[in-house]
């Protein structure tokens, strides 16, 4: 018994691979969805912030641990991750202040173009500063494969899913239950009224960028372990995560998580089951985007918004 031509072990393997990939998408998608929720604007430089975070994490980890694995490596890796999250958070805030804030009242197209500009500047800057050769970030633990039957799982995949889960739940709790989270939700509902109620909306916006960028940096370091670090690593990951955010319902945090994981699984299975040729792999995500926009523009969990006249 098998689904189409696949054996059960193959299906199991694709599920594992899909969920890992999807967790990464989800983590990145959170940044898009938070910024969109508050500013109604897509930060297309988000993927490049991820890339910068990965470089920062690489340099921190090399400084702390160097090559080789010791019993402290995982701890140092998490320390480097926190460092890279701080760097990316700062970078996100700087970008917001310099490139988006002055355009807040400009027509919608302006900050969008500004974001694309920032993304190109950041990836070229990285190429200039760090070179175009890939850098390898060593696993902070022996990444020996665990075989469950015929399905392979690596400690790295477990790390990805666990870290993504922890960060996502923490964010959800923060937004739903903390005072700052409440202020964020108020700002996203109506910035002007929130300002009248004494909320420092500029600070809230900066905070949103900081948190989204920090999550991107964490995702950057997690993927860097496997795919290496290079100046354009954020571009496609960023675009896919954007699709995940729209898929789940942009502006909705739970939606971004579900959208991310679903996208990862669908992409993996699309290639394996439907026999989509490798070169067309990335079109799976964008085909989904087109269908979502056609049939359910607000995404899986998004609410229909009435256009204000």
């Amino acid at each position, binding site marked *: 018994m098998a689904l189409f031509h696949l054996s059960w072990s193959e299906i199991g393997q694709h599920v594992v*691979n899909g969920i890992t990939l999807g967790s990464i998408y989800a983590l990145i998608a959170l940044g898009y969805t938070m910024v969109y929720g508050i500013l109604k604007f897509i930060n297309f430089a988000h993927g490049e912030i991820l890339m910068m975070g990965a470089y920062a994490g690489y340099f921190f980890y090399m400084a702390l641990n160097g090559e080789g694995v010791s019993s402290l490596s995982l701890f140092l890796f998490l320390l480097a991750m926190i460092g890279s999250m701080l760097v990316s958070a700062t970078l996100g805030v700087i970008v917001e202040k310099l490139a988006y804030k002055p355009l807040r009242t400009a027509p919608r197209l302006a900050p969008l173009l500004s974001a694309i500009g920032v993304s190109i500047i950041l990836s070229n800057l990285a190429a200039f500063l760090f070179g175009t050769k890939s850098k390898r970030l060593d696993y902070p633990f022996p990444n020996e494969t665990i075989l469950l039957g015929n399905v*392979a799982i690596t400690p790295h995949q477990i790390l990805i899913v666990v870290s993504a889960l922890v960060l996502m739940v923490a964010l959800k709790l923060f937004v739903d239950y903390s005072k700052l989270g409440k202020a964020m939700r108020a700002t996203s509902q109506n910035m002007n009224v929130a300002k009248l109620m004494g909320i420092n909306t500029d600070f809230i916006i900066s905070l949103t960028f900081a948190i989204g960028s920090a999550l991107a940096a964490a995702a950057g370091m997690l993927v860097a372990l*496997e*795919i*290496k670090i290079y100046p354009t690593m954020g571009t496609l990951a960023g675009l896919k995560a954007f699709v995940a955010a729209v898929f789940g319902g942009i502006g909705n945090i739970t939606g971004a998580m579900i959208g991310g994981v679903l996208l990862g699984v669908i992409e993996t299975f699309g290639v394996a089951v439907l026999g989509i040729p490798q070169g067309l792999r990335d079109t799976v995500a964008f085909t989904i985007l087109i269908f979502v926009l056609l049939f359910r523009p607000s995404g899986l969990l998004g609410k229909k918004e009435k256009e204000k006249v």
Partner: protein
Amino acid sequence: MKRILLSLGLVFLVLGCGSKKLTEIPVGFIGPLTGDAANYGKLSLQAVQIALDEINAQGGIGGLPVKLYVEDDEGKPEKANAAFEKLYGVNKIYGFVGPMFSSCALAIAPKAQAAKVVMISQSATHKDVTSKGDFIFRNVLSDQLQAEVFGRYVAEKLGIKKVAILYIKNDYSQGLAMDFKRVFEASGGQVVAVETGVQGDKDFKTQLTKIKEAQPEALYIPNYVAEMAQILEQAKQLGLNVKILSADGFSNPEIFALAKDLANGVIFSNSADESGMKNPLRENFVKLYREKYGEDPDAFAQNAYDAFKVLLLALKNAYETSGGVIDRTKVRDFLLNLRGYQGVSGVITFLPSGDAIKNVGIYVADAKKKTYNQIAVYKVENNQLVEVK
């Protein structure tokens, strides 16, 4: 009437050109001399210049000096085109060494063929380069020959019967993969899975999962370093513990930085390193080169030196047998009939296709020392794999 006069005039013009007395023998060099790949071009050009000095010190060809016209193609096909137009149109060359990159060679080979200018590339390995015509030669191992030897080697010497292939959709990788598949199957092997990827891909898990299902004994990955590092990593993660086979792309030491220990034990084919075999010609050449330029010639520079030497021989032969002019087809015929020329890069004999018959080395990667060890040298003779000792 007018038309007949015109054609007669043209005929005289052509004859006139043909019989015009030469005052020098113009030849060309095309290679990347500026830009990212400048170092390749520089080393080869220096080698060519040594050969040039040698012939002119001996009085050139038939008392005429050989004049070398050098053009820079920056490794770009469009520049190579312009370079050839100039060398042929303005300098009226009879042959040239280069271009170095397959893309450039593929771009100008049809033009050289149409103009009957002999082209000998010292480094363009793409199998289609020499199929552009009988004026197109190369003094380097072709991708096709590499796969011919390696396919037989894997089936006959390694005794591997079931191989999976994962290649990238570009000229280099696809060409090697398809040729390998054909030869391996003809040698009694079975290709149990063929999967593909795109250059720049980072995630090969889907393909590798399918490959694992097919249960091969070995995986052949004739790709570039960045993709191969990803494949090595992810194959291990998926528990696909099979022998990894590759091609000359693996000989870039960057693989050790990207794949670390996973590169260890990978078996691949490349041009044979014959430096272990005694060749006084090469030793002499390397010494001279080092004295003159303060650096060592790379393999392509040695190929370029030999390519230029045989081109000069062909020109000399054509000049002497035609009595003061150079018949372009005689230059080509000489090269096609050349057998066992002793050069610094080894023995040169051209196949009718224009490919040089080169020996293929089989190498194993050693990740600890970050080097490659040549374990054997092979050639194909009468459709048989023959070890060269």
